[in-house]
């Protein structure tokens, strides 16, 4: 495929993913909007992929430094985002059998 044909394909991917995203997110109840934000935040830390390619690409010092900082920032969100989402979701429970038996 030519370069421009590939980039048109990327546009398809973007638009389809946005449409899928729109429908998925609309199903999320307001109850879970805060975990939703931290979850999507963790998912969009996928920039870590770009950071890996820059930090490990054997580029000049400037690029490597930028890549390393990007790596740290992205990993903060990957780890922090998923952990905090988990922490929040663990708190949501329906009627418990024993009152006050908080886990």
């Amino acid at each position, binding site marked *: 495929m030519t*370069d*421009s044909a590939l*980039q048109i394909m*990327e546009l398809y*991917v973007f*638009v389809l*993913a*946005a449409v*899928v995203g*729109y429908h*998925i*997110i609309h*199903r999320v109840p307001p*109850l*879970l*909007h*805060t*975990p*939703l*934000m931290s979850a*999507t*935040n*963790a*998912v*969009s*830390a*996928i*920039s*870590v*992929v*770009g*950071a890996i*390619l*820059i930090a*490990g*690409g*054997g580029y*000049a010092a400037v*690029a490597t430094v*930028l*890549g*390393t*900082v*990007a*790596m740290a*920032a992205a*990993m*903060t969100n*990957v780890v*922090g985002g*998923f*952990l*905090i989402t988990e922490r929040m*979701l663990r*708190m*949501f*429970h329906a*009627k418990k059998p024993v*009152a*006050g038996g908080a886990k």
Partner: protein
Amino acid sequence: MSHSVLNTLIGLTYFVASLLFIFGLRSLGSPRTARRGMHMAELGMVLAIVGTLLNHEVISFTWIVVGGAIGTVLGIIIAVWTPMTAMPQRTALSHAFGALAASLVGIAHFYEKGASMNTIELVALGFEVMFGSLTVTGSLMAFGKLQEWLPGRPVTYKGQNVFNVGLFFTIAGLAIYVIIDPTAATAFYVMVGLATLFGVLLVLPIGAADMPVVIALLNSYAGLAASATGFALGNNILIIAGALDGASGLILSIIMSKAMNRSITNVLFGAFGKAPESTAKSAATLTYRSATPDEAASILDTAERVVVVPGYGMAVSQAQHAVKKLTELLERKGTDVRFAIHPVAGRMPGHMNVLLAEAGVDYDKLFDMDQINDDFERTDVAIIIGANDVVNPAARSDPGSPIFGMPILNADKARSVMVLKRSMSPGFAGIDNELFYKPNTMMVFGDAAKTVDALVTELKELTPAAARSA
């Protein structure tokens, strides 16, 4: 393994990871499936990272490991130590981190390969760095306002919007210049600098109470920056994950704006909460009824149906645990207790739900505005805890009010209303709340957590011992 086989393998890990992200987020449709879904998304992230590490372009792991280790430690610290009340700040900060990663990748990418990029790649890179940079500083500003390191009131000056629009077009102009002439490195770095400044100026005039919309919008920008990174690198998983995040942020900001009956443009440029322009009757001519906790408790004692309306004040005073105790006590007496959550209660979407879940309130007692609004007429007592504008009847009845048309919780329709509040001072919009002056309303002044604790104590004294031990 040959490069082409390896590349196919990497492509497959990205494909599976994309599916896991999509199905993972989909499972957030219910609290029962949410955790399982997050495990899928986590697996997707691991796959994507491992796949990338296999890429033949990765020739040295030293700095990947260094950066990754720093990020992991930071992430754990933030995740473990952030109190639930500080979740809005944490979210703002994480948008700054995400956008920082995207824009640094973009800058490094331009530094190494800018001159040899084709036009489409340069357009993507321009978006990536522009959205990324302004989201970094914009999110840090939001963080500062939420953390109260910066004044929460809107900061405005003459010609602000004109200046901002001018700045935006300068940034866009520079980006176009770089796209036409990719060797113009200076123009590129000036653009980065100006976009960074733009982020500060964009959030400066927005009040802390409008942060739900702003955070959601920055969420969307951070996602778009990640997506643009994908276009610049020719990487589909970045495009997909970024698009999911972008869509999510956009939907949330639209929901939040609607819940305030305002457009996103108005939130961004309206400097709401700056100048009270209310036509409401002067407070001096009206009287309100102040009540002590034991008076309030005696009314609660006979109530059969109670609805609690929490607001940002509950978060400020950390009253959610006391509220849980009160709920338990009332329920043991056979009282029906439910919670009415306005979409913009608190400082971020879903803020109140998380706090109440933290205190151990079952989520099946938390109701959205649309679910519960018709039930207020059949409610004996509505307890307003640190909420103000979201229960202001002026939004229904006073066309001159700045919040007129905003959907509100009909707490005023309850037989009696208890307002737990520190003082008679108006809410963030600077508008007097006529609910406070209604004959069926009693004001219980004081710190919300202490007041609720006092209610619990008084109520226990009123309750016969038999019921207490049940």
